[in-house]
C-alpha cells in the first residue's frame, strides 16, 4: 500500500509513453459505406458544363474523387488518377470550394483524369458522403451504393487496389 502512489505514477507514465509511441488515428471514416449515394443534383465544376444527378439508373461502377485546386496533395494524386484512367477506370471528380477558372487552371497544369466534373462550393456533397477532407475517394457500384472509401491521396501502391475494387464491381 505504501508503494501505491509510485505504482499510480508509473501507470500514468506508461499510458503517456504508449500514446506518444502509437499516436491516435485521427482519420474519420464515413458511415455511408453500403448506403445509396446522396440524392443530389450537381452543377458542373467547369464554366458552362452540364448539371448531373448523382443518383441515376445505373451509377457505375465509378470512382468518385473529391479534390480541389487549392489542395496540395491533390497535385501529386493527379498522376495516380491519370494512371487509373489509362487502365480504363472512369473517375467522377468533385471539386470542393472551387472556382470554375481555378479548376480549369488546375486541370490544364496537372492533366484531366476526370470523365465528369461537378462543383461542391459549400462542401454539401462532401458532408453528404461523410467525407472529411481533400483528397478523398469513393468507389460506387452499378446500383449507386457506396462500396469503398480511400482517405487521403492515392499513392502508387493504392492504384491497383482501387482498380481491383472497381473491377470487382463490374460483374
Amino acid at each position, binding site marked *: 500500500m505504501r508503494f501505491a502512489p509510485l505504482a499510480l505514477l508509473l501507470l500514468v507514465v506508461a499510458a503517456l509513453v504508449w500514446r506518444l509511441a502509437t499516436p491516435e488515428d485521427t482519420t*474519420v471514416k*464515413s458511415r455511408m459505406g453500403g448506403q445509396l449515394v446522396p440524392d443530389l443534383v450537381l452543377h458542373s465544376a467547369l464554366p458552362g458544363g452540364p448539371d448531373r444527378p448523382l443518383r441515376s439508373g445505373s451509377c457505375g461502377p465509378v470512382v468518385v474523387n473529391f479534390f480541389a485546386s487549392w489542395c496540395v496533395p491533390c497535385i501529386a494524386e493527379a498522376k495516380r488518377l491519370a494512371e487509373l484512367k489509362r487502365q480504363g477506370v472512369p473517375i467522377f471528380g468533385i471539386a470542393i470550394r472551387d472556382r470554375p477558372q481555378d479548376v480549369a487552371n488546375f486541370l490544364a497544369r496537372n492533366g484531366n483524369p476526370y470523365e465528369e466534373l461537378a462543383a461542391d462550393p*459549400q462542401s454539401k456533397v462532401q458532408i453528404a458522403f461523410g467525407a472529411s477532407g481533400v483528397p478523398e475517394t469513393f468507389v460506387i457500384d452499378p446500383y449507386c451504393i457506396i462500396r469503398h472509401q480511400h482517405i487521403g491521396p492515392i499513392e502508387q501502391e493504392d492504384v491497383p487496389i482501387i482498380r481491383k475494387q472497381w473491377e470487382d464491381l463490374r460483374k
Partner: protein
Amino acid sequence: MRWLLALLLALAPVPLLADSGLPPAYWANRQLPDPRQEAKARGLMEELRCLVCQGQSIADSDAELAGDMRDLVRRRIAAGERPDKVRAWLIARYGSWISYRPTAEPAAWPLWLAPAALLLIGAFLIRRRIGARR
C-alpha cells in the same frame, strides 16, 4: 552539405492544407433572424465536433468545413428541422464521433459509471480514515 540541405528543407514552411479562395457560406457567420431558432442552432453547433480541428466544436472552429457545417445546421433549423434530427443525419455520415453528447453505446458505459465508481472509492477511503482514527 546534404544534411545542411535537409535541415533547410525541414525548416521551410510547407503549406500542406491551404484554404480555398471562396468566401464563407452565407449562414456560416450570420445569425438566424429568429432568435429562438438561432438559439437552437447554436446549442447544436456547440455539440458538433469539427472534422478539421478535431478538439473544437463547429461553433468555435475557423476551419472552412466547420463554416459550411454551421451553414448546413442553420439552414436545416430554419427550415423547421429539429436539432436531434440534424444530429442524427450527421451521425449517420460520420458516426457518433461527430457529436460531443455522450450516447448510451457500450463504449460510453465507463463514462456513465465513472461518477458512481469515484463516489464509491471516496466513501471507502473516508470509512477507512475514520476507522483508523478510532
